[in-house]
C-alpha cells in the first residue's frame, strides 16, 4: 500500500506492518520525543501555555482531518463539538465524582453521539451544501449553551473540584502539558492506525469516489456517519481537556471563528495527513503567539510598528497563510516531505 525507500525490504508481515521502517525514521522519532519531553523545561511559561493550546488543537485537528481530509466530508462545526466535549466534561465533573480520565472519555462519547446525529445530512448532501448544514450544528450548539439553564445559560461553568489523575493533581500549565501531550500522542497513534484498517480504507474510498466505493461494497451511509462520530469524538476529547485544564468555561472559546481556524489548520498542514494536522495546529496556534512575542521584543524600538501592531499582526498572519496556499497547496506535510527527500538524496537532486 505505501511507498518505501529504495533498498528497504520487508521479509515478514510484522516488518511490513511497522509504522517505521528505517533507522533514520526511528532516530527522527526519538528526536521528536526528546523535544516533546524537553519542551516544558526549556520554554517560558508563556510558551508552555501555547504548547498546551497546540496539544489540544492537535487532537481537534486530527479529528477534523479524519472527516475532511480522509473521508472528503466538510464540516464547519468543529468549534461547536469542542464545546460539547467541554461542557459535557464540565457537567460530569460538577454533578458526579467521575475521575477526569473517565470524564474525558465520556465527553468524547457524548460529542461523538451528537456529531453522528449532525452528520445525518451528509447522507444526502455534499460539498458546500454539507458545509452549510454543518454550520447549523455550530449555531444550534452555541444557542443551546446560551439559552439552556443546565448548561449555564451563558453564565460561566466552573469546575471547582481539582482534577486527580492516578492520585496526581495537575494544576499548572506545565503539569497539564504532560496530560495534554499524552492525549495528543494517543490521538496521532489512533488516527495513524485507523487508516491501516478496513474502516480507514473505506473512508478513503468514499473520499476518492463514493459511487465506486458503494459499488465495491462499502456501506457509505454507515461509514460517513462513523467518520462524523470519530471526528467529533476527537473534538469532544479536546474540549474536555480544555475544560479540566482551564476549570472555567465560557462559550466564546468555541465560536464559529474556532471552527474556521480548525479548517485552516488542516488545509495549511495538509489534508489527508495525520502529521499535517499536527503541523497545521502548531503553525496556526504558534504564529500569532510568536508575532505577539516579537512585538514585545520590538517594544519602543520601532514607533510605527508599535503604533500599528494589531493591524500588522493580522496582515502578517493572513499573508503567511495566503503564501502557504499559493506556494504549497498540499500544506506543511508536503514541505516536510520535500525537506526529508532533499537530505535523503543529497547530493543528488532525485
Amino acid at each position: 500500500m505505501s511507498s518505501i525507500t529504495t533498498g528497504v525490504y520487508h521479509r515478514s508481515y510484522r516488518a511490513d506492518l511497522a509504522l517505521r521502517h528505517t533507522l533514520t525514521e526511528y532516530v527522527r522519532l526519538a528526536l521528536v520525543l526528546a523535544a516533546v519531553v524537553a519542551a516544558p523545561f526549556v520554554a517560558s511559561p508563556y510558551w508552555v501555555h501555547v504548547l498546551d493550546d497546540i496539544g489540544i488543537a492537535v487532537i481537534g485537528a486530527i479529528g477534523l482531518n479524519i472527516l475532511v481530509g480522509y473521508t472528503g466530508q466538510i464540516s464547519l462545526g468543529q468549534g461547536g463539538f469542542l464545546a460539547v466535549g467541554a461542557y459535557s466534561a464540565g457537567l460530569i465533573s460538577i454533578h458526579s465524582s467521575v475521575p477526569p480520565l473517565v470524564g474525558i472519555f465520556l465527553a468524547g462519547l457524548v460529542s461523538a453521539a451528537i456529531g453522528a446525529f449532525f452528520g445525518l445530512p451528509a447522507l444526502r448532501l455534499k460539498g458546500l451544501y454539507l458545509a452549510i448544514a454543518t454550520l447549523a450544528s455550530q449555531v444550534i450548539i452555541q444557542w443551546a449553551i446560551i439559552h439552556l439553564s443546565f448548561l449555564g445559560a451563558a453564565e460561566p461553568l466552573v469546575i471547582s473540584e481539582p482534577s486527580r489523575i492516578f492520585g496526581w493533581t495537575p494544576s499548572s500549565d506545565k503539569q497539564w502539558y504532560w496530560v495534554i501531550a499524552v492525549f495528543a500522542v494517543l490521538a496521532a497513534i489512533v488516527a495513524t492506525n485507523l487508516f491501516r484498517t478496513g474502516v480507514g480504507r473505506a473512508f478513503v474510498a468514499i473520499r476518492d469516489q463514493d459511487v465506486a466505493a458503494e459499488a465495491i461494497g462499502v456501506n457509505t451511509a454507515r461509514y460517513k456517519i462513523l467518520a462524523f462520530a470519530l471526528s467529533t469524538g476527537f473534538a469532544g476529547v479536546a474540549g474536555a481537556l480544555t475544560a479540566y485544564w482551564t476549570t472555567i468555561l465560557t462559550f466564546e472559546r468555541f465560536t464559529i471563528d474556532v471552527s474556521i481556524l480548525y479548517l485552516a489548520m488542516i488545509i495549511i498542514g495538509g489534508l489527508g495527513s495525520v502529521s499535517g494536522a499536527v503541523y497545521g495546529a502548531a503553525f496556526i496556534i504558534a504564529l500569532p503567539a510568536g508575532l505577539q512575542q516579537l512585538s514585545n521584543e520590538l517594544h519602543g524600538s520601532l514607533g510605527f510598528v508599535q503604533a500599528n501592531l494589531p493591524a500588522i499582526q493580522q496582515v502578517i498572519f493572513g499573508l503567511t497563510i495566503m503564501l502557504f496556499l499559493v506556494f504549497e497547496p498540499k500544506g506543511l506535510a508536503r514541505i516536510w516531505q520535500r525537506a526529508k527527500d532533499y537530505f535523503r538524496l543529497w547530493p543528488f537532486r532525485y
Partner: protein
Amino acid sequence: MKTRLGAAALAALVVVVLAGTSGGLARSTASTIGIGALCDLSGPTSDIGVSYCNGEKGYVDWKNRRGGVKGHKIALGAQDYAYNVARAQQIYSQISGGSAVAIMGWGTADTTALVPSITKDKLPFMSASYAEQLTDPRDTPYNFVVATNYTAQAQIAAKQIARTSPGHHEIAFFHNNSAFGTAPISGLQDYIKAKSLNFGFKAYAMITGSTSFDSQLLQARAQGADYIFIQNVPTPASILAKDVKRLNLNMKIVCLNYCGSEVFVRLAGDAANGVLAVQPWTPVSYGVPGDAEPAKWLKNRHRSLANEGLGFLQGWYTMAVMLKGIEKTITDKKDITGPNIKTSLETMPAFVTGRVTSPIKFNTKSHDGMKGSRIYTIKNGKFTKTTGFVVP
C-alpha cells in the same frame, strides 16, 4: 542560496522570539512596578477598546512624569488579545510568568475565564467588565469592578421606566452575543419579578458583524415591545438605532453603559435623538473637573478628549484606582504584592474622580465600586442629564 539565507533568517527570528528578553512586558524591579494589561485593539469591541487602552497608558505616562507611585515608575505591558479568550489566557501566562503585581483586563469573557488563574496567582485584576458575578469577593477575591455593575444598570433603567411611565411595558433586551451581553439578563428578570413590575421581557442576541437587525426588530414588534434595552458596544448599537428609525418603530431605546457613549452618538446620528443612556461615567461633553488632567495630557499630544471619548476616561480612572491601591500599599510600608494590594484596595478611602463618577469604594465584603448611575437623554447629539444618581 537565497532559500538557505531565507531559512537562516527565519530560524534566527524564531530563536529571537522564543528566547527573547520580552522587552514590552510588565516587569517589576527595585525601582519599577510591573502591571500587565489586556486590550482589545483589533477585535469586535475595539471601537471602544482602543480608547480605553489609551486611557490606561495615558494615566501611567501621566503618573510616571510626576515621579511615579511614591518614587516607583510603572512599567505597563499592554497587549492586544483581539477579544479572543484563548489568546487572553496565553498572554496572561506571559504576564504572570513575569513579575507583574496587578493586571488590567477588558472583556467579560476573558475576565471570567481568568478568574481561577488570578485567584490562584493572587493578582488584583480590574477590567472594563462590570459583570455582577465579579463583584463578590467570596467567589472572585482578586477581581475589582470599578463601576456600577451591568445588572444594576439594567435594573436602574427598569426602575426609571416604572417611575416615569406606570403601566404595562414590553422590554426587548438586545445584547451582544457574548458573556458581556448576557450578563445582566437573569438579574434584570429577577428584579422585574421581585419588584412586581408589570413588564414583559424578551432577549434578542445581536450577532457580531451584523449589518441589520430588522428580523430581530420585527420579532420585537410582534412582542409588542415599547422599550429596547441595548447591552452592546457603540457600533452595533448605532446600527440597531438606525434600523429602529428606518422601520419607524415606536420603541424607546435605553442604552446601557458602553452603548451610551459619544461614539454611539456620532455613528447613530439622528437616530440617537431621544435615546436614554444609563451611564455611571459622566460624558465628556459635561466638562467636569475630573476631565481636566486627561484633557491636558491629550492636548499636549495633539489629541482631544472629545475625539477619544468616554472610553479614554474609563481607562484613565480605572488605572488611577489600581495605582491608588498600590500607593497605599507602599505608604503602609508593605511589600508590593497582590494580596497586599488587594487589602489596600479594600481598605483605602473612597476614590474621588472629580465628578467623572460617584466616589469609588471597595470593602472586604463587596468589590462593587459604585452603586448608582445617572440617566441621560441624548438630544441633538448631546447628553442631557435626566436624573441624578439612581440606585436599583
